[in-house]
């Protein structure tokens, strides 16, 4: 076991040297979480928009469900995806368990409800303002949804960033369905968990630093989106 000071020194050296193993882990993390974010947005945004402008029976139940799903524990999602993808599971024949695809699926399930619930709120607020004007213009439902999505673009971008932030920092789901296999499914969070338990604090800390930088980057991106929006009197 290294001292913290030693480990930190080694970690910084690792990051600065562009260690190929480290790079591989970081790139896989980004690939998995970005893909999951894009898919989750493609699923979550239309659902959020439809619930936002729809008036149907059981809408309140849907709202409660959406908000509840936002807080899904990652390990439970991991477990469920595992059960479906494991060899004896209903989708076992696909052979996806312990692949990056399985990790993308798990993270998508984890963050799609977040995207749906947050975008529902954003779009509903905007719709409250636009609804009468749009009805007066006799817009179709599709035109209404398109216009709302476009006019909410900055807020929705921050919703997507929130989803990505949650996905990239999550460990419980990817460790179960990915298995943290070296050179195959090892991502930043699972590597940190493993290396810490093995006592290799340098690699764990190096990854921790990068993860922190990514988290800061996401926050900076959110901030700059907000500032751009404010500058255009979007809000």
């Amino acid at each position, binding site marked *: 076991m290294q001292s913290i000071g030693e480990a930190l020194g080694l970690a910084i050296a690792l990051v600065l040297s562009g260690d190929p193993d480290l790079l591989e882990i970081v790139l896989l993390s980004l690939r998995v979480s970005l893909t999951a974010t894009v898919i989750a947005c493609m699923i979550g945004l239309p659902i959020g928009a439809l619930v936002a402008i729809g008036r149907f029976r059981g809408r309140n139940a849907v709202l409660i469900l959406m908000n509840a799903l936002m807080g899904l524990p990652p390990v439970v999602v991991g477990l469920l995806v595992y059960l479906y993808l494991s060899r004896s599971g209903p989708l076992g024949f696909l052979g996806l368990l312990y692949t990056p695809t399985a990790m993308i699926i798990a993270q998508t399930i984890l963050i799609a409800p977040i995207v749906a619930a947050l975008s529902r709120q954003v779009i509903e607020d905007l719709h409250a303002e636009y609804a009468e004007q749009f009805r007066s*213009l006799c817009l179709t439902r599709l035109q209404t949804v398109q216009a709302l999505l476009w006019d909410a673009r900055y807020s929705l971008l921050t919703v997507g960033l929130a989803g990505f932030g949650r996905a990239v920092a999550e460990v419980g789901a990817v460790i179960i369905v990915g298995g943290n296999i070296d050179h195959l499914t090892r991502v930043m969070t699972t590597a940190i968990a493993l290396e810490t338990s093995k006592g290799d604090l340098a690699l764990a800390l190096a990854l921790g630093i990068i993860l922190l930088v990514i988290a800061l980057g996401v926050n900076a991106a959110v901030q700059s989106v907000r500032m751009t929006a404010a500058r255009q009197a979007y809000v």
Partner: protein
Amino acid sequence: MKSDAEDTPTADAPILPVTLQGVALRLGGAFVLEDVSLELGQTGCTAIMGSNGAGKSLLLRMMHGLIAPTSGDIRWGGAAPSEVMARQALVFQKPVLLRRSVAANIDFVLKVRGQDRAQRDALLDHVGLLHKSAQPARLLSGGEAQRLALARALATEPEVLFLDEPTASLDPASVLAIERIVSDARSRGVRIILVTHDLGQARRMADDVVFLHKGRVAEHSTAQAFFPDPQSDAARDYLNGRLVV
């Protein structure tokens, strides 16, 4: 569900005059409009006047079809308001502008209505906003925002134009600019229905005046008759600047 056979004749049948018969509207347990019976003729400009809370904005929304009356009947030619909404435009008391550029606000309407996009610059020029085309619409001043909302309403080529206090809180030059644009539309045959508190404006623009008082029509007279000699106490008090409550 209406059959096509029923819909087709209304597609370009005249929608004026509009008649309201015994219209009432109940909101939150109280009547905000009651026993409103009116006929508004085929051409010209009608001013709807009355004190704050008299029900002017709600009457406008109801005639346009955005809210349904609790009881009574509104007919545009033979059609219900919702059937002819697309042939009318309403400029709201607070203009609702999209979070886009000035030009894109007009483009949007032209596009959803399947109209020629090339008209956009002419419309913006008409309301004196061409030089602001690229600016975010939400950065416009109050008067500019009203003019953009008006241009957008005109972009739909309405037969009836509802205006809800289009010049409230505007400077005198902007008021006249808006009145010129509206008069222009009117001379092209657009039927104008205007809510205003501006007596000078009502005198300049209106052919007839509907005076609302506590959700009821206190009087409906020609402008020539109304301003010198209002028939109802409520209208007399209003014109004399007395608080009508």
